């Protein structure tokens, strides 16, 4: 308990702690909203691919000496658009295309970092995130990304709803579904970039899928799902960080483990509750 009081103390005192908290919030907002699309449109695998190729972009940014988040954004957007176009224009299977870009991105990242002179980051912190090291510049980039993401989603909400629900009908009503698919993949890429700093390349998928999946258990309205996913994401982020602080563990991993445990507990409780209700309500049946 004493450690947690210390945590609040630190939060009030240190700017880097405040940055970290804001970063967690921003990532949860983007993750809850775009993650809902990722979950309902089954884009989890491509999201994984995008986040892993972002590793290549980060490596490239270190090698050439520019901001790593910009490198990550470039690689992530490139992957999103290439996979989207492959899906539309060619007969290459989309999952194979994702797999190919995934491994090339990872390998390129390792080579770039190996060949970078001077200071090189620990690849572990890129892979698993390090929320403690959010710089002021990175926070500004994150804020810009979230404005872009929210703007697109608000403007395109009804079209995205139609397209993710029933693509053929959406096309008939005049929606350019190919273009909108590319936009959605690009927004997913930007969201992933936003989250990389906190949970890292490998654990991004947790923040993108667990809060929306949890929210989806309770609602049949996409808007409600998004808003609840944002709130759940923020709570899980803060909770995971408190655990990491208390026992001195890497925050990315504790956020993911906490999210996973909460999901399993809630999911099985619902299943058990339904089973019990069914049994007691209907004793005569069979």
């Amino acid at each position: 308990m004493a450690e947690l009081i210390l945590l609040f103390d630190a939060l009030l005192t240190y700017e880097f702690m405040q940055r970290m908290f804001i970063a967690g919030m921003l990532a949860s907002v983007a993750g809850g909203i775009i993650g809902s699309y990722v979950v309902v449109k089954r884009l989890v695998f491509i999201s994984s691919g995008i986040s892993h190729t972002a590793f290549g972009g980060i490596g490239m940014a270190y090698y050439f000496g520019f901001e790593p988040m910009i490198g990550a954004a470039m690689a992530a957007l490139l992957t999103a658009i290439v996979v989207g176009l492959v899906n539309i224009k060619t007969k290459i299977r989309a999952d194979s295309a994702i797999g190919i870009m995934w491994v090339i991105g990872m390998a390129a990242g390792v080579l770039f970092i190996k060949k970078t002179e001077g200071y090189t980051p620990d690849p572990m912190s890129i892979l698993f995130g390090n929320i403690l090291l959010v710089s002021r510049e990175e926070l500004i980039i994150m804020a810009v990304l979230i404005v872009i993401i929210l703007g697109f989603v608000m403007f395109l909400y009804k079209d995205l709803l139609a397209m993710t629900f029933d693509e053929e009908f959406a096309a008939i009503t005049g929606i350019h579904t190919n273009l909108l698919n590319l936009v959605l993949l690009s927004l997913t890429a930007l969201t992933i970039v936003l989250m990389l700093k906190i949970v890292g390349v490998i654990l991004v998928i947790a923040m993108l899928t667990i809060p929306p999946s949890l929210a989806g258990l309770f609602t049949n309205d996409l808007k409600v799902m998004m808003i609840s996913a944002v709130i759940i994401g923020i709570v899980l982020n803060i909770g995971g960080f408190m655990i990491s602080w208390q026992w001195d563990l890497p925050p990315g991993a504790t956020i993911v483990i906490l999210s996973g445990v909460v999901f399993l507990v809630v999911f099985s409780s619902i299943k058990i509750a339904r089973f019990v209700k069914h049994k007691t309500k209907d004793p005569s049946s069979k």
Partner: protein
Amino acid sequence: MAKRKRKTVIDIRGLWAGYGREPILEDLDLKVYNDDFLGIIGPNGGGKSTLLKVILGLLPPQKGKVKVFGRSPIEARKYIGYVPQFAVYDKDFPINVWDVVMMGRRSRRGLFPFYNAEDKQKTKEALEAVDMLEFRKEHIDDLSGGQRQRVFVARALASDPKLLILDEPTASVDSVIQESIYQLLQRINEGIPIILVTHDIGVIAQAVTRIACLNKSLHTGDGEMLTKEQLESAYQCPVELIAHGVPHRVLPEHKK
């Protein structure tokens, strides 16, 4: 049938269409008028769905001329209400009946980000027309097959279409519900033309005013009689020609 001034709604001449090198539709002619309730029948793989895709502008023709309301299918499709055979959607998708039907308004609203009061009014009217308004808050997958089909009809109606196209609308529902859906369609047909694709030849006779038989090609274009031989060649098996639909014109009457 009301005495509307007879106008051509769809005009297809010499249409070839398909996906690979093998065309599915060969040299097809078809005219649809503004008072039609046209039934399109034919064997599986005969090109029924392909023809609908061309009319809806989802598949460009390889050869031939296709005019819908005098325009290209892509320009005209916002005037068409479409009810697919199976709407391809994820049954876990978080969406309720109201929002599904509201989607039909997209063609009227365009890129503007929000639906307005008129959209809500039309959505309500469409749900009332199919008798599903009380289910508006339900999840789409909690409905029965017949109810869900009514919702997809409502989604098509919500856009105030000038033409309604349905692909096997009763494939997944029992005969009582089939009957009620056909009654609903006849009511709708008092206002707009309908094209109905089905292989349910028994029920179709009660509702439709014209039947076209599609097996790769189609030449019932204008005023031709549909004969037993044509039906048999389309199905490639003996067919019982429908005779009980006496008050309806099962066979086209209009002369050239």
